[in-house]
């Protein structure tokens, strides 16, 4: 097995008296999709925010490519190549696809935008993800469907050669066809050797794309399993706490 690009070891996080993460370990591999599942309040979001540098962990080590790193700001995480696609996507409706993808990191020449360069890169990134549903990269985001928005948000995250992409419930609120599109996109992302960490409540989606499944239960990682070695029923059991995981992955 490869070296995990992300390796969390015994990370803890508490808010006042509430211990949200009680010593969690997680591994994510390049080119693999790791699903992070767990019930509401299990600590998924807190775990992700620590990786994104938004809310640093209190204790524990984070290894990136085998080296210990300290993620204390979104900028550091982004610098390492860790990108997060939040559930609410964080796109500006009034800007077009290119403008959204480059927001905050525009290509400029002499202080003015190099629109051509940005347009080409945006177009190439979307192409590399085999996106076919977008007619023009100069469409405003307000004119896009939910699936297309998710596509743009994901494309934005990989624009600058991201190594780890964290997706927060990418298929929530999507229709059947759009869910299929986004899941296909997640697979292609992994094919480009990106380590994908996907939070999801939908086990059907998880079993469709994930290589590994990590289950959080009340702030503890109760199972880290290879998808092919488990069943949906078992995972439901781990999530609800009615089953405990014993076997080796």
């Amino acid at each position, binding site marked *: 097995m490869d070296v995990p690009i992300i390796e969390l070891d015994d990370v803890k996080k508490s808010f006042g008296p509430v211990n949200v993460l009680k010593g969690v370990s997680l591994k994510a591999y390049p080119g693999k999709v790791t699903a992070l599942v767990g019930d509401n309040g299990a600590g998924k979001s807190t775990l992700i925010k620590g990786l994104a540098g938004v809310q640093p962990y209190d204790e524990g080590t984070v290894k990136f490519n085998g080296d210990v790193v300290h993620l204390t700001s*979104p*900028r550091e995480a*982004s610098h390492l190549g860790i990108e997060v696609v*939040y559930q*609410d*996507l*964080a*796109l*500006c*409706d*009034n*800007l077009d696809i*290119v*403008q959204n993808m480059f*927001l*905050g*990191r*525009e290509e*400029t*020449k002499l*202080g*003015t*935008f*190099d*629109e*051509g*360069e940005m*347009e*080409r*890169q945006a*177009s*190439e*990134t*979307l*192409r*590399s*993800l*085999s*996106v*076919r549903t*977008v*007619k*023009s*990269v*100069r*469409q405003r985001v*307000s*004119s896009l469907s939910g699936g297309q928005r998710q596509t743009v948000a994901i494309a934005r995250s*990989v624009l600058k*050669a991201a190594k780890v992409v964290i997706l927060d419930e990418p298929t929530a609120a999507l229709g059947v066809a759009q869910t299929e599109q986004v899941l296909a996109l997640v697979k*292609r992302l992994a*094919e*480009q*050797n*990106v380590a994908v960490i996907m939070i999801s409540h939908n086990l059907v989606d998880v079993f469709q794309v994930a290589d590994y499944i990590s289950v959080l239960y009340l702030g503890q990682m109760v199972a880290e399993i290879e998808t092919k070695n488990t069943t949906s029923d078992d995972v439901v059991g781990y999530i609800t706490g009615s089953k405990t995981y014993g076997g080796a992955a």
Partner: protein
Amino acid sequence: MSDTKKTPAPKRSAVASADEAIPDTTALPASGLIGSGQEGGLGDQIRAYISRVRGGDMGVLPAVAGFVVLSILFTVLSQYFLTERNIANLITQAAPSVMLAVGLVFVILLGEIDLSAGTTSGVAMALFVVLSDPGGPNLNWIVALIIALASGVVVGLFIGFFVARVGIPSFVVTLGLFLGFQGVQLLIIGTGGLYRIQEDAVIAIENGNMPIWGGWVMLAVMLLISFGTAMLDRGRRNRAGVPNRTIALVWIKLAAILVLGGVAVFLLSQNRGQVNVLDGKIVGGTIIEGVPIVVPLVLAILWVGTFVLDRTRYGRYLYAIGGNAEAARRAGIKVIGIKWAAFAICSTLAVVSGLFSASKVGSVDAAFGHDTVLTGVAAAVVGGVSLFGGRGRLVHAAVGALVISVITNGLGLLNLGGGINLIVTGGVLILAATVDAVSRVRAGGSLIRT
């Protein structure tokens, strides 16, 4: 002639290598790029524009239509409307509102408002006249003007502090300043006081004209800048290997500037003063001719502002914050600093607007500038700038201000000033907002924006 798709398929970035494993790429265009709406000939571009308008993206179109309709209406109703003298008059009347509306766009794009812009201009111009008063401190007028502009910057930073830093709604902060500044102005000027503008240079802004050749030089500079930036953009797009819009659009734009600007400069180059002619010789009266000095000033500020909004990070971030402030913050944009600067720009341009207005009126009193701000906001809205933020351009606000000025000017010529003027202006404002809202609903959007 179209010069699209002649570039070879560009090199893919490193991440694209895995995509070779996916066989079905037949549906994609041969150029290897996703469309950008720039392809195709003139016909395609016109069709695309029409479909955008039908899709609810009306932009400045209703305001331009309103301007044309009102102009025709007043030309029919009044023999004085389409005279050289009235055109010059209309332009100088509109200049202060244009400036104020343009300044307000910077904060309106953020979804904020500055109700104190008018009183800010009042306080700043009160400072200006008192400081440069020969019977008072008698400062050099340039020094006094710099102080006035600086006071605008300070006011903007003050508002920005409370809005961006403390987090008070801009409506409340600027409403407070709107009230407070009326008092400040009263204290500076004194009850019932009125200061005449003494400096000829200031009077000349609105009342002086450039020499005839100045107008033509101005037009030539506009054409050159327009052509130069268009070519620069095309060059960059070519180098990046993405298609350009058909060059015909550049020629059409230049032709439009040449014809409309040419007609305007030509009309303003005619003598619009009263002269007494005896035996074919001018024996008395005054010759008034040339483009008013305020015109190049307004155009220059408009151009710089548009440049900043369209082509620099600062401008893009203004739109981004207006569209989705949280997304902007997560993208690493320093939202607070951008907002802060926007309020400073708005207040400073409000002072410039006050300068134009003082130049036009020739004096500053204790009530100067108090009733202008809502006209500025109305101008922006009539021009198609969204009060919800993120949508609109400077030129929209400028056209909106022209529409409102045409109403004031035309009704004045028909001796229907005062009450009727305000009623019609209010009606046009509501009409403009309705056109905008209905066009958005037709495009499948919601009437109520969240």
